């Protein structure tokens, strides 16, 4: 039994190692990717600093809390929205998926392992970059006062991580039927995701009717809700409600991704593979 577990773990370690090595093949691209993430953080930070000016509060957010939101967005973009499962679509279209299908590894485990490596690597650099920026720019950062906040935040973070994985997998799986996968991913996986998740600005600065519409989607539970919990702007009941809804979305997208994968795999022609 122990030997089987060890052998099973070994392949995931090997896959993690290979994923990590891939990043260092195109080193300049990786450096530019990190630079881009840092620039994105700085542009958002300087924008909000400029908007606040001498004001202490705006749009229902104290200055320190808004800056904490911006720092939080940088971390959650790395941890929740960082992903490699988007590559699945390209592999389906090019036929490269066949190589993975022949390996003794489950498709979800394969992409989840690559996702975890991606997240850990990006998180490491994000800590470094944002840490330096926070230190030198003397950005006031908000830490929660209540212990249960950390618990709620951690719980929602784990759910959000898996929710994003299955949303991303679900979008990629459309590549079994259509060549226009980039358009679908761009609209749902970038535009809707980033705006509705609150990756540019908190959703509650928008008009009520628009917030209502956005809250009907799974996206706010990826960035906005975890950060609202961190900033202690939600009651315990609302936080629990948010966690439950996120869990529900997770189940829905897990089933949808599974369904699409099962049907798509039967439809897979391995063209060019």
């Amino acid at each position: 039994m122990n030997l089987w577990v060890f052998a099973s773990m070994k392949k995931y370690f090997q896959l993690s190692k290979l994923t990590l090595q891939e990043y260092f093949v195109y080193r300049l691209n990786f450096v530019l990717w990190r630079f881009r993430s840092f620039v994105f953080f700085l542009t958002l930070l300087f924008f909000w600093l400029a908007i606040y000016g001498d004001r202490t509060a705006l749009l229902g957010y104290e200055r320190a809390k808004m800056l904490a939101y911006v720092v939080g967005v940088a971390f959650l973009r790395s941890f929740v929205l960082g992903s490699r499962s988007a590559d699945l679509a390209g592999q389906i279209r090019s036929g490269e998926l066949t190589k993975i299908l022949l390996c003794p590894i489950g498709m979800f485990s394969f992409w989840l392992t690559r996702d975890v490596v991606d997240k850990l690597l990006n998180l490491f650099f994000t800590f470094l970059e944002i840490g330096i920026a926070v230190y030198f720019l003397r950005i006031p950062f908000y830490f929660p006062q209540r212990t249960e906040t950390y618990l709620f935040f951690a719980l929602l973070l784990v759910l959000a991580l898996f929710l994003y994985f299955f949303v991303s997998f679900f979008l990629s799986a459309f590549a079994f039927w259509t060549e226009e996968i980039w358009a679908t991913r761009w609209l749902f996986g970038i535009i809707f995701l980033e705006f509705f998740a609150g990756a540019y600005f908190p959703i509650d600065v928008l008009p009520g009717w628009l917030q209502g519409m956005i809250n009907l989607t799974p996206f706010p539970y990826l960035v906005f809700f975890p950060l609202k919990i961190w900033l202690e702007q939600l009651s315990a009941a609302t936080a629990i409600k948010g966690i439950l809804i996120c869990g529900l979305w997770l189940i829905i997208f897990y089933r949808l991704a599974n369904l699409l994968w099962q049907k798509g795999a039967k439809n897979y022609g391995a063209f060019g593979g």
Partner: protein
Amino acid sequence: MVRSAVRLIKIWLMVSSRAAQSQLLSRWAGVLFLVGKIVRFLLFFVFLFMILSSTQNLAGYNREQVIFFYLVFNLIDIMVQFLFRGVYQFRFSVVAGNYDIDLLKPLPSFFRPVFGWTDILDFITLIPLWIYFLLFIFSHHLFTSSTSLVLFLLLFINSLVLGFAFHLFVCAVCVLTTEIDHLVWVYRDLTNMARFPTDIYQKGIQYILTFTIPVVILITVPAKALLGLLSWQWIAFSFLITGLFLWGSLKFWKYALKQYSSASS
């Protein structure tokens, strides 16, 4: 000179027509891209309104002026994407070795890399945007004189030249390293800072946005010209910076081409 420019424009129109036909083959993708572009534009618009309803003004600019800056940002940004979309596909061309064939054609070496693909969807977005922009500036009496209008158009063209210089620089980096995917996005992220008047940022940030990737000259300067808020020093400086960037990019491009080894083919 004029004849060769006309010839290049004819070739560009032909290349653009082929690109449009290729894009319109997948109508569903076109619809999704258009929806995304419109949603992004509208959401930022709503966000702008929400901020202005709280602050009343931004760095001394009133609501109409801030919206005007946002519209100019969109016009220049989309126009640059529309014209220089080829850069996004250049890496593939270099890696696959297809660029060798382009080099054999009687065209400037940068023609294919920069102008090789024209985004028809950006063109479709531009038409209503220009109409709205013109209606907006006339209905709110935002331009002070016909001189301001002429100056705006000149600086608008200056911005396109600057956009070209930066995209050419990115292509040169691609020839040397075959890694440009994120470099062009760094440019996009920085230009996004000019969605709002760049005067709202601290002086240090404004210097960076003027001298590194000159976002201020790209977007803020033409907008200010139409509002009649620009000194002649700034006008001269804008043309000078663009000239320097263009000269630097062309030099760097020539250097990169000398290093091109056509390894992929």
